[in-house]
Structures are given as structure tokens and as C-alpha cells.
């Protein structure tokens, strides 16, 4: 029994690590032999990756990007949860806000970039605002949904025991809505990374997006690929971090759902 489980675990690991490694090997051999300008050899890309991104000056490009991402994302999550709770608590507020929210959400955020640059220039405030604007909607909509969908029995329990508003929010409403809020925050995170890169490509003097575009424009093709690789790795790590956080936060949810499934 244990041997079987160990073998299954091993097979899973082989698949998870083996397939990407095999693909890398394929890329390596193909790119070194093909000799194409736009698809430089993988070893060159990796060298550039090491020199440009892992060496000391890496902070010059990565940290500004990450900083803007963090501030914009945090602002969006706080605003989305706050506003969403307010709107979700009352049926009237929810209904009156719905068309407006749906309309604003429908505008592709990059379309607001020209406006953002006009008002805020090309500095950090503009980029942070653009990032915040793009992640606001999924967080906001999911919070409204989650708060509005709190089980009526839970609401009545809060009323019967006379829980004051603060207690009700912190111990009943927000935890009950948290699975949906977290799902919204997760969608928001990938949107935030996209917006971070776009805002840096359109108007910036530093950042990962800026350096990818700059490498392309000066025909440093391996550097361009290295930048793309950095974004991939970054996205992967941030998502992993998010999953860890989600597991901790929603442990009860998984437990309760597993129970219902039995």
C-alpha cells in the first residue's frame, strides 16, 4: 500500500518536473542549431538572464516594477473589499451600482492609459493607479456577490445574538464572503501583472516591461527573451505565494466542502 503510494507520488513528480525539463532541453537543442535571429540560442538567453536579472543591478528594474505592482494591487484589494462590502450589504445599493460597475468594468483599462498619462504624467502614480483600476473590478464584483450571498441563517444568528456591526463584519460577513473575495483577488493579480507590463511599455524609464521593449528596439534579442522569462518566473512565483496564502485563509472552506461531499 505504502509502496504503491510512493510510486504514484514519484510518477506525479516525474510528470510535473520532467515535462518542463524535457521541453527546455528541446528548446535548448533546437535553438542552438536553428541559428534564427529572433529565436536566439537558449544558452545566450540564460546568460543574459543571469547577467541582467540575477546580478546586482537587477533591483534597478525589478524592484520598481514589483513596488508599483504591490502598491496598486493592495490599493485595489482594500478599495474593492471596502466598497464591495458597502454595496453588498444593501439590495438597493447593489442594484443601483450594478449598471455603473458593469459599464466601467467593460472599458479595457489600457484604453484609460492616455487619460492617465494626461492627468498624472508618466510617473509612478499613473502606473499604480492603472494597476489598481484594472484589479479593482474582479475584487469589487466578487465582494458584492459574496457579501450579498451570506447565508440567511447566519444573518439571523447574528441578529438573534445582537452582534454589533464590527463583530458582524469581522467574524461573520467577511469570512463568509472570503472564498469569493479570494477568487476575485486571484483574477486581479494576473490582471495586475499585465497592466504593470503595459504601463511600463507605454510610458516609463525603468521596469521589466520597459527593459523588454528597450532590448527589442536595440536588437538585443537574447535580452528581450530574458525579460520575458523574468515575467514568466515572476508570475509563477506570485501565483504560488497566492495559493499558499489561500490555503491558509480558506482551510475551513476546503474542510467544510470536503465534509459536504462525503
Amino acid at each position, binding site marked *: 500500500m505504502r509502496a504503491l503510494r510512493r510510486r504514484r507520488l514519484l510518477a506525479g513528480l516525474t510528470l510535473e518536473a520532467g515535462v518542463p525539463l524535457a521541453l527546455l532541453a528541446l528548446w535548448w537543442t533546437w535553438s542552438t542549431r536553428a541559428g534564427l535571429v529572433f529565436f536566439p540560442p537558449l544558452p545566450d538567453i540564460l546568460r543574459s538572464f543571469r547577467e541582467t536579472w540575477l546580478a546586482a543591478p537587477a533591483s534597478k528594474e525589478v524592484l520598481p516594477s514589483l513596488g508599483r505592482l504591490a502598491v496598486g494591487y493592495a490599493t485595489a484589494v482594500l478599495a474593492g473589499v471596502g466598497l464591495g462590502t458597502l454595496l453588498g450589504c444593501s439590495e438597493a445599493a447593489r442594484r443601483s451600482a450594478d449598471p455603473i460597475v458593469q459599464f466601467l468594468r467593460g472599458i479595457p483599462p489600457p484604453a484609460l492609459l492616455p487619460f492617465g498619462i494626461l492627468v498624472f504624467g508618466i510617473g509612478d502614480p499613473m502606473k499604480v493607479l492603472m494597476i489598481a483600476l484594472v484589479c479593482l473590478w474582479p475584487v469589487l464584483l466578487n465582494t458584492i456577490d459574496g457579501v450579498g450571498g451570506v447565508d440567511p441563517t447566519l444573518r439571523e444568528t447574528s*441578529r438573534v445574538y445582537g452582534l454589533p456591526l464590527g*463583530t458582524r463584519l469581522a467574524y461573520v460577513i467577511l469570512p463568509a464572503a472570503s472564498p469569493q473575495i479570494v477568487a476575485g483577488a486571484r483574477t486581479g493579480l494576473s490582471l495586475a501583472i499585465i497592466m504593470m507590463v503595459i504601463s511600463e511599455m507605454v510610458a516609463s524609464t525603468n521596469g521589466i516591461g520597459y527593459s523588454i521593449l528597450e532590448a527589442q528596439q536595440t536588437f538585443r534579442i537574447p535580452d528581450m527573451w530574458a525579460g520575458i522569462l523574468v515575467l514568466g518566473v515572476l508570475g509563477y512565483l506570485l501565483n504560488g505565494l497566492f495559493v499558499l496564502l489561500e490555503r491558509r485563509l480558506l482551510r475551513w472552506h476546503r474542510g*467544510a466542502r470536503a465534509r459536504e461531499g462525503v
Partner: protein
Amino acid sequence: MRHHPPLLELVGLGKTFGEGPGATQAIAELTFSVQEGELVSVVGPSGCGKTTMLRCVAGLLAPSSGEVRLRGRTVVGPPPEMAFVFQDYSRSLMPWLSVRDNVELPLRHKSRLSRRERRSLVEDAVSSVGLGRFLDRYPWQLSGGMQQRVAIARALAYQPEILLMDEPFASVDAQARADLEDLVLQVQGAYGVTILFVTHDIDEAVYLSDRVVVLTRPPTTVQETVSVELPRPRDQVSTKELPEFARLRAHVFRGIKRQMEVDQGEGAEGHRARLAGHLEASGSTGTPP
């Protein structure tokens, strides 16, 4: 005890849902009272508005006519002297809080309690329902019967004067049900709390109660109130084999069965009764049928 003013009074309580010709009168007129320290059960044919009545008593639902009084004061919202145990325990406990935190939650805003007092109230209540070892578990790690025990512990720790229970054991298995019934008898003694207990189980009502209030079908009124003079302490086996238990059980059962026959009967009597119900419902809203 009877010479005291009653703890809880329902005075001509009525509830109509909706307006105009589509309105349905769930409860016509309910009048009865509960004395301090009593355990009163309410039974009736299914759909007779037992839960609606209890929600009105709890201040969760506004009555359409009449009123509920707790110690002489009209109930307009959930009073702080009242606790409620819902039928659906899995949705009334917070799955993100441990047993301890669930029971403590309603005490958090009682500022007259120190942290230590709160803690001991919680631990006493959880022990009294026999879950002392499960303080740090989560509700979804417990069986249905145990979850309902947690809900009862939460109600007890709140130290209410009156505890309302809405078919609390309807969704647990038979063995857990008998245990929970005995638990109610036991904690009622220990906490000296008055209980208003809604159930559709006649045996349960007779076994637990000092009095059983039997309701009619809708539009609901009190059909009769049955005094249960069975000796205490009661026991699942010896109490239930008493001739008096069998007599009371049969008496209540016949009353409810009569109601249900009226409901199902296609005879002139049932028809007339239903028509009367309609007239009454539309009459109360002032529209001609």
C-alpha cells in the same frame, strides 16, 4: 409558580404574508403564555406556521397583528434575554471558527464580562453539552448531533432567560436525537432556563414538556393546551412506558390527526373550512373575494 406574571406572552399573534388578493394568512390568532422555568412545546400539522410563530417570538419577523411580550415588554427586535437554536445547525455555526470561538462569539460584545469570565462561561457551556474535549475542533470536523450540541452550548453560554428551539433535532439520527433530548432536560435544570420548543415529533413534545400547545392547520390558532404531569427526572425508557405517557401521546396525536383529515378531506366539511380560510384571508385585507 403560576401566580407569577408569565415570562413570555403571545397576545393575539397573527401573521399574513403578502398583500391584496394573493395574501395568505399563515397564523390567524395565537394566544398563550410561558411561565418562568417552564418547558413548553408547540406541535401542529405540518405547514401550520410553527416556525413563523417562533420567528415572530424571536423578533426576527414582525407580526401582522397582536404582539409578543417578554416580561411585559413588547418584542420589536431580538431581545438580549433570548437565545435561539436553529434547525439547520450546519448553517447557523460559523465554519471558520473553532467550537470555542463559535460559542464565545455572542459574548464578545458583552462588556460586563471580563476575558476570564467569558472563557469560563464558554468552557462550562461546552462541557455541559459533553464536548469539553472538542473545544479547538471546527464544526465541520464534528457529526451532526455534535454540531447541534455546539449550537446549544452557544445559546447556554449567552445566559438567556428564555431559549427558543426550532425543530432542533429534526435533522439528526435517532440515537443522537434521544441523547439530545436528555441533554435539553439536563441543561434546563442546570441553567434554569425557560424553553419554548417547536417540534413536529409528538413523542418528543410529550417527553420534554410541562405543557404541549397543539396548533390547528392554517389559518392557525391554538387548538388546545395539554398539561404534562409526568414525574421528573424523566427517562427515555421508564417515562415512555408509563400509561400516562401513552395516554398523552395518543391524545395529542388524535388532535393533530383530526386537523390533517380536515385538511385532506374532499368532503363538504373540509371544503367549507378552506373557504372560510379564504374569506378570512381576503377579509383581513379588505378586498372582496
